[in-house]
């Protein structure tokens, strides 16, 4: 039985709990109405999405609204996870935002080639992190329409605005 949540869920994939803590704090400071979940690497991400492994009995929707994916992680890195995710006909709809320390041109290009929706280098100061998270949540959760807005369900059909 899955519990319906009222706010959208952003899933962060990062092996660094400090970064999770800071990102969560920045989201709170920015006033964004969202939950931030954490998984530690690419393998856990796929387990989370497919409700298997340690997430087999998870009482939550399997599809987050948005994924913040680090690239450099143990077990299964960001690019490997992204490749697998984008190969799944169901999961490929979830926008994936690469959220990493790397600013290497090669990482940026290959991430977009693999289907990332955006690429954000982790900001250096907390202030810029708050601004980045504010903008990110405003754009993705308020302005954009996502395939899984809340409770893991597809968005209701709405009349097109001309």
């Amino acid at each position, binding site marked *: 039985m899955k519990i319906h949540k009222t706010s959208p869920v952003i899933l962060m994939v990062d092996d660094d709990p400090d*970064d999770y803590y800071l990102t969560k704090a920045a989201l709170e400071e920015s006033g964004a109405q969202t939950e931030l979940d954490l998984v530690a690497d690419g393998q856990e991400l796929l387990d989370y999405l497919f409700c298997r492994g340690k997430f087999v009995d998870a009482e939550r929707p399997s599809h987050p609204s948005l994924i913040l994916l680090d690239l450099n992680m143990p077990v299964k890195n960001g690019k490997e996870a992204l490749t697998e995710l984008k190969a799944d006909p169901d999961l490929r709809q979830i926008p994936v935002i690469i959220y990493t320390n790397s600013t290497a041109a090669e990482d940026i290009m290959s991430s977009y080639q693999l289907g990332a929706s955006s690429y954000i280098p982790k900001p250096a100061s907390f202030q810029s992190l708050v601004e980045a998270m504010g903008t990110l949540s405003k754009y993705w959760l308020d302005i954009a329409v996502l395939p899984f807005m809340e409770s893991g369900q597809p968005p209701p059909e709405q009349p097109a605005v001309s």
Partner: protein
Amino acid sequence: MNNQAIQHLQERNTLLENILFHIASPILYMDPDFRLILVNKAFAAWAGHRREFFVGKGYFDLYPDPRREAIFKRAVETAERYFALQETFPHTGEDTYWDWTLQPVTDDHGTVTGLILNLTEVTEQKLARQQWRHYRKKLERSNRDLQDFAYTASHDLQEPLRKVRAFGDLLKRRFGKTLQGDGLDFLERMVRAADRMQHLIEALLTYSRITTQAQPFEKVDLNETVAEILSNLESRISETGGRVEVGVLPTIEADPYQMLQLFQNLVANALKFHRNGGPPLVRLWEEPVGETEFQPPPLIPVDEFCRIRVADNGIGFDERHLDRIFAPFQRLHGRSEFDGVGMGLSICQRIVERHQGRITASSIKGEGSTFTVELPRSQPLPDQRRSTT
């Protein structure tokens, strides 16, 4: 012919034979069918036989070698000299190396009547060269390791530092008001120190990227480069009320981004170190490279260089500190006077060095500085560029 003439000829013959006999280089003379007619002492000694042993024998019967036989045959046909470097011969053993010449001897009609084979030992040179190559490889490898180390170290240092700054910020935001006494001041000092460290590491990264993340050389119109720089620095120029005058600049073969870095650093420096008296005036122009003390690197002649000057009317510096201004993390001024980590000119110098050029400076304290950049217009050498992430 009288006796005296005969005696004279004989003496002369003996003299020539003696010279040939005693010459230290192995020499032999053979007919156009490669039958040995004469070998000198050195040749016989290296081959391990008495001289008489060789006479009348075929060279390739003694030392079969199809490749050289073809060369010898061609020399007989064409009457052209053949020259080869650093080879081994069976008659000298495999552990010695020889430069050798095959000189055809012709008669009045141009027909080859004989061949002189002349060997010069170059074993020492060969070994020295091998050793030199070995050391060069080793040096290149250790340089590369050092660069990689600097890059990785500075890259990895950023990570924990980012946390220190971010949690410092967070602490200040959430608990700044509740900190007692000097608490907030201490916290701010910590955050400022971390900020500064961040700038230092970034500068170090930029410095190491000059070689580790370099782009290939291409044609760069420096007029376009400087136009971009002026637009990048627009706000700083207007803030200082300064003016930048740009002459016609050349197009050269270079790394476009590094040219931007180089001249932007120089112009930004010129704006930064201005005098309180008046607005900064920065001038850039190209000047012919005349006869100078400038020693160009090998393969690039002096007239292949262009010289660009960047002059300002700023505070200048004491020329005694000339060496220091290009050294990493060196600053001539207190941090309260001028901001910065002291890497700008080191980065400039490293970029210029990668382009086989030279950067120098001259100054009169209180009147201004002139930086002179000399760069090759084209890059003849393959660039030892590498890329890492």
